[in-house]
């Protein structure tokens, strides 16, 4: 695959938040590529830094370090003014469809605001565009003058998606867009996301903690833990043969809706450590069933274990680790 196929290249992305008690290393040297027209899943538990990383890629949070190569330009080198042009190409859909829509605005103004900001349409054209967007996301265009509270959670999420689409973006960060929805409604929104991705050729970074949603929806997966990437690669390869002990534990912990499913469960001890004081060496070692003394000394580098499949663990080649990954 040539580098032209990569729309977004994140390199060494870092975000440190200084606090009175020390520095919170929310994101610490994260690198991954997003190929044009694909959906990349960013997974991890709370505190893994996945949301911060997602927002940093759009400079909604200003990164502390790293490069954000978007279509050949490092977004971090752009001035606010220059960035505005790019904002049209980069959009975000938020998790909570209740707090991410202004309750005082009508739907037509929520969507219209984006159109106005970028001067894309006026008058009748603007109205037509809003109506078209609403029907595109499966809402009744006649409801454009309604307020957010008149819609259900799933419908609001559709409004949030219509708002993101209003400026015809190329790249969308979707931050847990279905987590707040009822299961029966989740599937509707996932179908919509797929339809839109295909018909608009969208590229997406899909942030989620629901591993079955990610396995289904995403072409590639990046697994984060405590601000760092543990493993990344094509989702089929990662779900079939997870090579990092953390990915293995995460996949084995996800409940399967089948009481007869036999499975080897890796139950991790304890909780995720504080990002203020992450463990030395490999940040996962304090909960890792395979940790050895050396894990405290070196930050593991990425090793390639399959086509585009990379893992950051010094013991990934150990027969014990490999066999645990195969038993899941």
């Amino acid at each position: 695959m040539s580098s032209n196929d990569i729309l977004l290249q994140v390199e060494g992305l870092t975000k440190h938040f200084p606090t009175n008690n020390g520095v919170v290393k929310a994101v610490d040297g994260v690198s991954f590529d997003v190929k044009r027209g694909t959906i990349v899943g960013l997974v991890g538990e709370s505190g893994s830094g996945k949301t911060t990383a997602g927002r940093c890629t759009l400079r909604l949070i200003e990164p502390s370090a790293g490069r954000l190569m978007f279509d050949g330009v490092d977004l971090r080198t752009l001035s606010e003014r220059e960035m505005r042009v790019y904002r049209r190409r980069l959009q975000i859909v938020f998790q909570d469809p209740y707090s991410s829509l202004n309750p005082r605005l009508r739907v037509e103004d929520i969507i219209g605001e984006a159109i106005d900001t970028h001067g894309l349409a006026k008058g009748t054209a603007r109205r037509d565009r809003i109506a078209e967007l609403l029907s595109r996301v499966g809402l009744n265009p006649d409801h454009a003058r309604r307020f957010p509270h008149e819609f259900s959670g799933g419908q609001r999420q559709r409004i949030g998606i219509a708002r993101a689409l209003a400026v015809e973006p190329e790249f969308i960060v979707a931050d847990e867009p279905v987590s707040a929805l009822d299961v029966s409604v989740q599937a509707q929104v996932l179908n919509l996301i797929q339809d839109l991705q295909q018909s608009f050729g969208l590229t997406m970074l899909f942030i989620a903690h629901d591993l079955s949603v990610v396995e289904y929806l995403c072409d590639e997966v990046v697994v984060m833990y405590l601000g760092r990437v543990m493993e990344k690669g094509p989702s089929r390869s990662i779900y079939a043969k997870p090579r990092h002990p953390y990915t293995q534990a995460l996949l084995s912990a996800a409940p399967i809706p089948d009481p007869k499913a036999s499975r080897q469960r890796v139950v991790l001890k304890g909780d995720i450590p504080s990002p203020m004081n992450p463990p030395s060496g490999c940040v996962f070692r304090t909960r890792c069933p395979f940790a050895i003394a050396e894990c405290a000394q070196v930050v593991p580098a990425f090793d390639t274990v399959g086509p585009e499949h990379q893992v950051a663990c010094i013991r990934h080649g150990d027969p014990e680790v490999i066999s645990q990954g195969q038993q899941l």
Partner: protein
Amino acid sequence: MSELPADIVLRVDDLRTHFEAGDRVAKSVDGVSFDVRRGETVAVVGESGSGKSVTSLSIMRLLSAPGRIVGGDILYRASDDRVLDLAKLPEKAMRGIRGREIAMIFQEPMTSLNPLYTIGDQIMEMVQLHEPVSRAEARRRAKRMLELVEIPAADRRLDEYPHQMSGGMRQRAMIALALACNPKLLIADEPTTALDVTIQAQILDLLRRLQAEIGMSILFITHNLGVVAEIAHDVVVMYAGRVVEKASVDALFDNQKHPYTRGLLACIPNATRDRAPTGERMRLNPIPGSVPSILALPAGCSFAPRCSLVTSECESNPSLLVAGPDHLSRCWRHETL
């Protein structure tokens, strides 16, 4: 005194809990019945607005106005083998039941623990409220409880405040508090929903282990069918205030006899089923529409407007029909499934 088979700890029978405001009545729980057997776990599954949480609050008699139980029985077999109807028990007697006989844990431990008291103080208060023990003995009990739920350094943790603990630790502390007086029934309302999957796995393991050791019964409220498969013996599926399907966990996952349950399972993404061998994604099969408002339920079967099997028969509401051995379904067409 009402009769209750010896192995049944709790029998909810035709429970009706309504919320009345002016001339509007929300029938949040509309004729719900199920049994919880000794030492077993019953999962109540449903989406938002299904009435699952109101059912659990009704059992604990923790409803806030204008919600009230307007009909039905909640038969509970107490430790002294008396059978009590909790739906009609005076509030004073109910206070002897809560915590001591039936305990409850909630989704967000931070809001159910008192932020101003240490974990130790809260467990000790609970023990001393129900049992005539000294402070020193209560503290020993509290420490034993923290050890039971596998909180490391229990002695030190006793003197910590809820905010000093992580989400998983707080849920463990909450469970320790709930089990301090050795209740026979634990009601767990979405206890792992706010937790990460690795922590959720720990808590489910813990509940299973405690159940095996102590023999308590669990009423587990959840929206997550994956969790149901892991923890339940029996399953009650609720929709819009009513039970729509009831079966053992194996029977339910083997063969759903209600289109709603079937639809719920079909719309959880499953890469093995929903992606072609080439990796291509196939479309998911969502249930169309959304959960109806409890104030504007359709006449007849509440699920009919979203159901693909709907016929004219569905204009009248079916009762729970026998769909197999110990398998009930509120669907006229369960035989076609």
